[in-house]
């Protein structure tokens, strides 16, 4: 493993922040330590030479069965009833027409 691949705990803590995980100090220490150990183990993968190799991100069309050949027609279709979906929400407006969420602008970051 080269220096450029070394795992720094602050970077992992930043990743937790980017993933919207609000870790307590003790939990962050444990979790980031575990992830660092896992990545250090996975670093053996870096020894596999890949010069000139294209990455494989999906099985569609290249690895696996051919996908559906066409997109479907762009026609309006019935959707699930609004009430059924709003009924699953933690909070809705009293008239049950909108989701109710915490303040998005002007609140704490």
């Amino acid at each position: 493993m080269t220096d450029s691949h070394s795992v720094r705990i602050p970077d992992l803590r930043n990743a937790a922040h980017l993933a919207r995980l609000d870790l307590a100090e003790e939990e962050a220490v444990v979790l980031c330590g575990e992830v660092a150990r896992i990545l250090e183990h996975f670093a053996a993968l870096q020894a596999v030479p890949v010069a000139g190799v294209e990455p494989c991100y999906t099985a569609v069309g290249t690895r696996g069965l051919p996908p559906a050949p066409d997109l479907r027609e762009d026609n309006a279709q019935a959707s699930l009833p609004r009430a059924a979906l709003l009924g699953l929400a933690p909070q809705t407006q009293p008239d049950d027409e909108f989701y109710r969420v915490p303040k998005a602008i002007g609140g704490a970051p």
Partner: protein
Amino acid sequence: MTRPTPNTWLHLDATQLAHEHRSGARSVVDTIAACCARSQRLQPRWNAFLALDCERALARAHTLEHAATRGRLHGVPIAVKANLAVEGLESSCASRLLVGWRAPYTATAVARLEAEGAVVIGTTNMDEYAMGSSGESSAFGPTRNPWDEARAPGGSSSGSAAAVAGHLVPLALGTDTGGSVRQPAAWCGLAGFKPTWGRISRYGLVAYASSLDCVAPLARSMRDLDLALDIMAGPDARDATCSPTALHESVPFKDLQGLVLGVPHEWRAALTDGPSRAAFEACVEAARAAGARIVELSLPLTRHAVSCYYLLATVEAASNLARFDGLRYGVRAAAHSSSLAASIAASRTQGFGAEVKRRIVLGTYALSAGHAEAWHTHAAKVRTLVCREFDEAWSACDALLGPTTPFPAIRLGERSNDPLSLYACDALTTPVSLAGLPAAALRTPLVEHEGGQLPTGAQVVTPHGADRLALRIAEVLETQLGTQALLSPAAEVQA
């Protein structure tokens, strides 16, 4: 190998049970009532289900009893992993964040089984969001292995495997991303099948790693897996990744004459204990005795498959699980409603379990600026090389034969504090997943292990699209080995 039991109908596979219902030899209502009662009574013992809905199942049974049209799964009780949507049933993915979430629609794979007469009796326990190899990452407690209740049934389709091994249902749906159906099949003495990626619609499946996820059945016979595949496969306008390519028609093989089976050296070498090695060698001998020619070959990248898989899967998981924010569905953290960002972070932090957080952080890091090339892109290039290794193998053989897991079922708690040692359980299933290949998990002989008898398994892997070839070969091997009628001690457990 087989054990007598007074509950003879519990032995029946889905194919036979449906036949008896269709012919009128057995009442659908009686079957569903008995399965529901047995599942309820044994729930405290194995914790196979997250939600049982006997009222719904019995209402459907009464409808089917008098139905004019009788499908290929007429009246067959099935269980569905809790990451697949079944309208009206709780599909929480075994996560605190989704507790109480009842699906407003039904997944295509489940709907197709229901259209043939299957009756869903409940959704099953699992590793949270399908992230695990033992069933222990469920927020609702681990599932126990009906063969030995101190052991894990495997994961992540832990509850589906226990439900079939415990003779609660003859057929269950799981999902296989990196081995989550094949590995529990091996540890619970079941037949399991991972289709070619794209073969079965994933509409209604909660995505974990989209380039790897497959809906996959567990059963006690290969013909049930074939039937379930036949019913579920096929294009779906709601899933653009679902292929329109038809399954090959085929009839069961009498033997394996004319077929060449490749046994990868690295897969054979991964077996860590003598009895497991002996069980696998018995399987190779069975293939030979059935007329197959055995060739040894090498898949050197096997040793990197776990690392490659976990890097790619966690990156995809970090993206897929970003949708869980406690805003439109799921549980919202009550204490943090001062701002949107704080609410989302609190809901995710309180809602996700330790393994899910671990994988999300790992995946986010591996895709973050400055690290993506070294980790994610590199792993994706290694995946290309893994695929090439399989492509080369097909020039030497018709199918690959290898063990499914390096060792039999682990004890509950044995590895739960050591993520890397749990990931090692997937050493032989992840290469196949990376390449998107079909694989049939079959039962090999029981082994003596740590003072008890435990199941073992092997997998038959075939080229893309040759799903039925894998099942046909596996069926012959089980017949040759005499494991096709393997019954767990749970068959004798009276509810």
